[in-house]
């Protein structure tokens, strides 16, 4: 079972995404990936950064793509938009996917576009039947237009809505069931939202369909302290991908992995982007946990065989 590679629907079958630790490819690190082929099991890019007619950025990714399995992670499709998807943008995404043949494609359970304006943030949805119908319709539209299954990522959020009628995990489970999409489980997002909305992160893991998880994200977050009106110290967690992964998130990662089994795992770092070595060291931490869980799983498999 070790190093089992998931089948990818691409022309680069040998470059399917392995059940190992990858890193998010960010602009400052591109020259190093082009020149030195640093050790990362796979890479993920933000799809929108590679829309474009030409230029050195596309050329660099084409070169890198020959050496690494690749995942395209979208940040602009706005699956939760009440007004539906932007067909032009969907066509641009399709062109990026056709060009780079990623092993996995993913997007978010959130929205960014309303009235044709793009707010460049992953904004929260109310968990209602109406929102569920809309996002399922949009995911089906996207999967149809892109001609393949996509994964959707659980969000981090700072507000909850009065109109919500179900918890987030129920909303996520319903999306997966209705659209046949896969899950990208972001354990940092679970940790951040569990704190901000006071739910139990472990209960979240119990409730989402873990058998549909095909990728896991880990990242750092920012702990914002502030004093409320009577001077009490309050804390809100902000999902800024701007620092090391916190130990509580590694613990949650291990717990998720023990249940899901070895799964492609990505370290995301988008703000205060460090030297590549620091990012790769973070991926090695994920790799250690993956190896240990892989060993547990294979010994359990041996017991079954015996």
């Amino acid at each position, binding site marked *: 079972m070790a190093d089992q590679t998931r089948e990818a629907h691409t022309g680069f079958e040998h470059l399917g995404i392995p059940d190992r630790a990858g890193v998010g490819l960010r602009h400052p690190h591109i020259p190093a990936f082009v020149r030195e082929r640093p050790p990362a099991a796979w890479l993920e890019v933000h799809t929108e*950064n590679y*829309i474009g*007619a*030409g230029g050195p950025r596309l050329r660099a990714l084409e070169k890198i793509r020959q050496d690494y399995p690749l995942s395209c992670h979208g940040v*602009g499709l706005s699956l939760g938009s009440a007004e539906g998807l932007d067909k032009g943008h969907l066509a641009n995404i399709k062109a990026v996917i056709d060009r780079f043949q990623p092993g996995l494609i993913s997007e978010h359970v959130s929205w*960014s576009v309303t009235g044709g304006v793009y707010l460049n943030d992953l904004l929260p949805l109310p968990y*209602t039947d109406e929102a569920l119908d809309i996002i399922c319709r949009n995911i089906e539209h996207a999967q149809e237009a892109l001609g393949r299954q996509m994964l959707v990522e659980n969000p981090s959020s*700072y507000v909850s*809505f009065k109109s919500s009628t179900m918890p987030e995990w129920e909303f996520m489970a319903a999306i997966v069931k209705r659209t046949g999409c896969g899950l990208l489980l972001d354990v940092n997002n679970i940790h951040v939202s569990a704190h901000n909305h006071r739910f139990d992160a472990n209960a979240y893991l119990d409730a989402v369909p873990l058998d549909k998880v095909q990728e896991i994200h880990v990242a750092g977050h920012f702990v914002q302290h502030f004093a*409320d009106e009577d001077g009490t110290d309050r804390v809100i967690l902000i999902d800024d991908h701007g620092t090391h992964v916190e130990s509580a998130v590694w613990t949650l990662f291990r717990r998720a992995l023990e249940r899901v089994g070895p799964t492609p795992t990505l370290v995301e770092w988008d703000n205060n982007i460090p030297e590549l070595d620091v990012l790769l060291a973070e991926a090695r931490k994920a790799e250690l946990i993956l190896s240990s869980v892989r060993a547990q799983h294979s010994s359990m498999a041996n017991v079954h065989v015996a």
Partner: protein
Amino acid sequence: MSTLLDIQEAFRAGVLGDDDLPARGFIVEDEISSDRRVGIYRNNTLISLSKALAACYPVVERLVGERFFDQAARAFVKAHPPLQPQLLAYGGGFGTFLDGFEPARSVPYLGDVARLEWARNEALFAEEAPIVDIAALQRVPADQYGALCFRPHPSVRIVRSRWPVQSIWQVNQADEVKPVDLDRGGETVLVMRPTSQVVSQILTAGEDALLAAIASGATLEEAAVRAAETDAQFDLQHALVAHLQRGTFCTVSLETDRGTAE
């Protein structure tokens, strides 16, 4: 009953506006106020889009300083939020916005510097194309040169300014900035990315006229006449060789082929 669309429109107003009021009625409040919660999204949006502008306009930022730039960028984001979910395509109107931005009035060339930087950004991501091979051109009989039609490389952009805009851009590439004499007059700048690097150069009035005529479909002879009318000293052969070497043109054809195959 609130629908998703109501919530999204209210949220947009709360994110691009000054407070959470439009969205407050939809949000659960506890010891952490709706304003603080919505404020996180407002910050994310304004900071990330201002950063995207700063990445595109480094010389403008250097000319006015980080704080001033940030103010201008936030005002621009609020007035002109992106209409495409693609940051590479965002910010083309910043130069025009700066022209009318009252606090920037004392830096009258700022808008033109922004337009030059935007041209560089567009050139960087423009379509790729081969450049005209000079050797192939040498096979054309000399008496047919006048009928040649060139097509500018798809990355070509021209920026015309009444300020020495390329000189201002150039001195701001170094750590130590040498002063530029603003009275030296305007500059017309050719920006392009013939291979992997974006390059920019000042055009003479004759070259400007030549390239403008070529871009509008004129033959080399027609374009040369236009250039000579503009600039009596214009040296066609020198200019043509220089532009062929730099990669300004991607195709060449004879007038008889014009409008058909290239």
